[in-house]
């Protein structure tokens, strides 16, 4: 499968800091739904910034190695030009909304890149429709709820038709229902348009039904970068990383270890129950 993002022996340190990323060597496959997990301070956000050209070219710092996005090195590229192909949503969604109305917010990037007004209007309409905010072009931002603003931010990224969307803990300030609904929407976009998705998330339970690949970071280095079902055991083997696995997979890998059985690729409770039943595990009343 074609790689859309490639990091080759990438090292990075911010100005006046120690190494944040060490010898990162990984590939993100086209059309994948990749989850980046790891403890706080592992370098997840910096890795996202490296994928979008912000690190090191916007923020500065020391680096070695190379980052290739869609076959081209990010070296010497303008952040906004990379953003036309790789959408990036940071953690604090509130501070990323720069306009006063929903329509202006979505149109902002398009106008800056010189799209014709008719196309801007059409793309804005379509992007708002895609995120479940149809006809809200004239809404003031304070007329939208937190969840709707998060969706609006996603619409502003979608409007430029990026091939990759990188999301850095997009639901950290949301309630569980809002988080589930946003990830469902992201997955829907991934399926409908074939967009490659890269998500940094602490609460990996939300992403279990959708994740195809997983990158695990610890202290700035890659612990595992593979298909989800292959990376999860590496995470389980490390006691620090184990709690970051989806709860169902902690149970699954625990059972496999304890009873020496091979269980299936659980993506939800229904899969788990069916598999356990098939393996002869029985429900006990006590």
């Amino acid at each position: 499968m074609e790689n859309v993002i490639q990091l080759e022996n990438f090292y990075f340190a911010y100005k006046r800091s120690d190494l944040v990323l060490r010898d990162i060597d990984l590939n993100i496959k086209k059309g994948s739904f990749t989850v980046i997990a790891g403890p706080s301070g592992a370098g997840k956000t910096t890795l996202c910034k490296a994928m979008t050209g912000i690190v090191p070219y916007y923020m500065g710092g020391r680096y070695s190695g190379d980052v290739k996005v869609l076959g081209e090195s990010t070296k010497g590229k303008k952040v906004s030009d990379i953003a036309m192909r790789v959408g990036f949503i940071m953690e604090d969604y509130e501070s990323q909304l720069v306009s006063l109305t929903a329509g202006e917010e979505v149109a902002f990037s398009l106008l800056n890149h010189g799209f014709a007004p008719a196309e801007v209007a059409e793309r804005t309409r379509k992007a708002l429709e895609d995120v479940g905010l149809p006809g809200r072009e004239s809404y003031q931002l304070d007329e939208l709820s937190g969840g709707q603003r998060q969706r609006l931010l996603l619409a502003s990224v979608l409007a430029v038709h990026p091939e990759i969307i990188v999301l850095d803990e997009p639901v950290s300030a949301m309630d569980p229902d809002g988080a589930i609904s946003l990830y469902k929407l992201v997955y829907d976009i991934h399926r409908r348009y074939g967009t490659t998705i890269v998500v940094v998330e602490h609460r990996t339970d939300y992403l279990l039904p959708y994740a195809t690949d997983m990158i695990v970071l610890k202290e700035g280095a890659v612990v595992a970068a593979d298909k989800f079902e292959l990376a999860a055991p590496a995470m389980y083997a490390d006691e620090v990383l184990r709690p970051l696995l989806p709860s169902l997979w902690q149970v699954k890998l625990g059972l496999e270890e304890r009873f020496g059985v091979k269980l299936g690729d659980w993506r939800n409770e229904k899969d788990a129950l069916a598999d356990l039943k098939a393996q002869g595990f029985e429900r006990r009343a006590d």
Partner: protein
Amino acid sequence: MKLTAFTQIIVTIAVTAWVFILPVEAVATILVLELALLLYIKHDKMTMAAIGGLAVFTGMMVLLQLLFGTSLSLALIGGLRMLVMTMAFLCMLAATRIQDIAKALVDRFCLPCEYAFMLTTALRFVPNFLTDSEITLDAQSCRGYSNRGNIIKRFLAYLVVIRPLVMRAVAKSETLALSMELKGFGGNTYKNMPSEPLGLADYLVLLLVVVLSTYPFWINSIQNL
């Protein structure tokens, strides 16, 4: 009749000049017209509060002038002038979207886009800043912050609220800057926005502005005839 943001800015600038060149009676008439216009455009609670606040501020200014020995008539004229000038800005803000004002400032007055964008950004982030200040105040109150004591004590105590608030604002501004960079903010931002062409109403109002602004010249010419 809808005036473009450009015309409204010109009228506002002109009004601030007129208060110095037109007779007091004419300035007072402008004030009445401004009040009527403002209440016609918007008559919500916020507008009333703004008018009330301006009136109180004008009263304080008049009092201050009287305290420094200015005659009553001069103090009143000074207050009237200030009131008319600020009311003109209030009318402009009530009648025009801030985005249109920013665009007109960039397109027609060659204001750098960064400064124009500050106008909209300031308006966009005021509610966020107020929410943040409430959150910080509550958090620090839980940690023992109290606003009791004399004014100096209260000011010093308030520093524990100001410090984290400023840090939050700086962090947010960094995210905003990065977000603008990602979205390609720059010279094209205003250039590519749909522009407002001047209409008949704009030309008529601009003509009136020219006539009233040259009042001292043509009134002298008429008197000399």
